[in-house]
């Protein structure tokens, strides 16, 4: 009798397993592009956001405590450093308006339209939770309420970070430029040649594609956004060329680029319109 019961339970468990496996496979097939998941996250954002906030709270507590116990001397030191930095940067900024005017005048002479300046900037904070280590996505604390749009570019103080790939009520998902499915059209600042960069899945490098063997390219070249892909405004730094490898049996150079933005350590990012 007991054996029979045990057998029945196993039998039911197996049927349950098969049903759940079929449902999971169907869901995976439907959600390859993360659209179904996006809808679910959008509908349940009021439940999901508190979970993220709770998960992030130990880190926030640690940061706030370390800020609180920072000595006065350290803060004065940091303040002096920042003052110096502001002074240097405001000196550099002073040169920009005349350069802009000159640029406009030259472009007029050449007959091309001047690049559009991004007029609005919004600062968002990263919600530091651990997503899958290989997904190259981050979450920011701005959402539908701030009039964001899909494909909006996100930068930090060092360079381009990524694009917004999902918007929910109170938080949004940013796909980093290093994501394996992401590509960006860059320009070599030295030679003005266009280069296609694609993500590798590794936060520390990007891959430059289709660069012919005789291309004028050297290690240390700075790559900036071209503005031609209608996603990123032109002129923002993406990174610098770190490795160039030439193999005789290949048609293109093997070029690696080190992203300049602090992809894994920043706290605040800027959203551009």
């Amino acid at each position: 009798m007991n054996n029979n019961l045990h057998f029945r339970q196993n039998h039911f468990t197996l049927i349950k397993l098969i049903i759940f496996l079929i449902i999971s496979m169907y869901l995976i097939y439907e959600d390859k592009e993360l659209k179904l998941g996006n809808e679910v996250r959008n509908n349940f954002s009021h439940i999901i956001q508190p979970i993220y906030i709770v998960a992030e709270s130990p880190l926030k507590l640690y940061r706030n405590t370390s800020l609180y116990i920072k000595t006065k001397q350290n803060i004065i030191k940091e303040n002096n450093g920042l003052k110096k930095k502001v002074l240097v940067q405001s000196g550099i900024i002073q040169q920009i308006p005349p350069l802009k005017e000159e640029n406009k005048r030259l472009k007029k002479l050449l007959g091309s339209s001047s690049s559009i300046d991004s007029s609005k900037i919004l600062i968002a904070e990263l919600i530091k939770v651990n997503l899958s280590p290989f997904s190259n996505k981050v979450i920011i604390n701005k959402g539908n309420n701030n009039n964001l749009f899909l494909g909006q570019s996100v930068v930090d103080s060092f360079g381009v970070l990524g694009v917004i790939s999902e918007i929910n009520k109170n938080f949004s998902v940013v796909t980093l430029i290093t994501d394996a499915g992401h590509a960006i059209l860059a320009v070599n600042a030295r030679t003005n040649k266009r280069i296609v960069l694609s993500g590798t899945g590794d936060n520390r490098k990007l891959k430059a594609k289709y660069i012919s063997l005789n291309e004028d390219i050297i290690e240390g070249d700075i790559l900036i956004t071209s503005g031609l892909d209608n996603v990123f405004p032109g002129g923002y730094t993406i990174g610098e060329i770190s490795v160039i490898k030439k193999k005789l049996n290949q048609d293109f150079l093997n070029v690696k680029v080190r992203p300049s933005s602090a992809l894994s350590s920043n706290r605040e990012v800027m959203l551009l319109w």
Partner: protein
Amino acid sequence: MVVINKIYIVSTLLLLFAIILNILPLPNIIDSCRPPILLLVLIYCTLAYPESINLAYAFVSGLILDILLIMPLGYNALCFTITIYLIMMYYPQIRLQSNWNKMFSLLLILIPFFLSSTLMNSILKINYNIVDVAISIVLSVIIWPSLFNMLRFIRQKYTQ
């Protein structure tokens, strides 16, 4: 009846806590090879109450994790369901084992989890580092005895 309710409440709270632990930010070095805490807690709950905490729990917890981790829905649900099915098959044997044997059987049970997630990563073209995944499984095996004892202590304190 009250005991059964208590079992559900305690297990659900443990799983919720494990979900939060699973997405807790950690330094970059540990981040890529963190053990699947939610799965470990789920395995413990199934070992303790195989009649109550079963495949449905595994499936739903997997789905919740997929939603939170921004992964394709069903990814973790599938891996968790397979693992918990194995636990449900072999729980009478695992329960009687010593700590060392338990670690070894956890390793054996985590191998299908490892294989299914690797297979899915390659089908869905998710970039992954096989060494990190292997390290995460070794770490899970190492922390298993202490986690097991801790969870047993909590369970015994709050369900009786």
